[in-house]
């Protein structure tokens, strides 16, 4: 039987040794984490399943390349745009502002 797993569905696949590193959580990662929890707590998303739905909509390339909280960020954005909580235009505008701020402050 051929295996055509979605990118997140890695149970049982071949993989190399487990990298035993433990990394510190960056401040923006805490913010993303808190955002996900508060989005749940405030009812912006109804349950973890909706978040998982967002994760499963990531492209295989994203799933491979993104870090853990990057995946959460993109999947929550997907879910909240999909639900109409925010618009894609507003999100893209805000991303441009943040990129400009970062360029100025670096």
């Amino acid at each position, binding site marked *: 039987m051929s295996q055509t797993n979605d990118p*997140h*569905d*890695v*149970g*049982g696949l*071949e*993989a190399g*040794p*487990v*990298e*035993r590193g*433990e*990394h510190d959580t*960056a*401040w*923006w990662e*805490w*913010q*993303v*984490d*808190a*955002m996900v*929890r*508060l*989005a749940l707590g*405030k009812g912006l998303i109804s*349950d*973890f*399943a909706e*978040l*998982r739905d967002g*994760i499963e909509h990531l492209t295989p390339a*994203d799933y491979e390349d*993104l*870090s*853990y*909280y*990057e*995946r*959460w*960020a*993109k999947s*929550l*954005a997907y879910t*909240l745009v999909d639900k109409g*909580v*925010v618009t894609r235009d*507003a*999100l*893209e505008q*805000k*991303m441009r*502002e*943040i*990129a400009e*701020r*970062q360029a*100025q*402050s*670096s």
Partner: protein
Amino acid sequence: MSHDHDHNHDHDHDRTFQPDHPEPTSEAARVGLALRELLLEAGHYTRAEEAAMISRMQGASPDNGARLVARAWTDPAFKARLLDNGSDAITELGFDLRPAEFTVMENDDQEHNVIVCTLCSCYPRALLGMSPSWYKSRSYRSRLVREPRTVLAEFGVELSDDVHVRVHDSTAELRYMVLPQQPAGTEDWSEDRLRALVTRDSLIGTQRTLTATDTDADGAPFP
């Protein structure tokens, strides 16, 4: 990286990043920060709520899971309730994972339990703190269900052939924790003293044997 040119505004960008953390520059991280600012501006949550949430998450540590284990070791009735219905039993110690279900799997001489989340990285963080990055790694998630004994051996867990291994795959709705075996010779120890023996990895199942010493040979039990 903090800057004060916008000190007349109430949106304090300078607090977006902690000084000792690098600013994220990836597109995906910017998606997250942009979304955060939009939600804050729309009043879906406040900075105070965010700060409280981060503080709470930073405060969660494996010591919470260790408290449950020490209570179970010293109180057979609690242990029975914990194994029967973990979601309800942990509320007795002030923890709450609902709406996710919470199930505790007990190790014994014939059985070893270990948890994973093959689909993403579900983890009972309120009880174990932040998950280690290896728990979230593709390698751990892929291989634990296929060759658990090999992976466990890499973690230093040597299991004889007559010990049955059960791998528990967490989901968004169901979280697991392992109840490790109480070290021999600690039967009359206090709950607090026992609690200090319990390590994070023993609650995940990537460690099987706990040692009855008050000072962990590997250093602090909760790194």
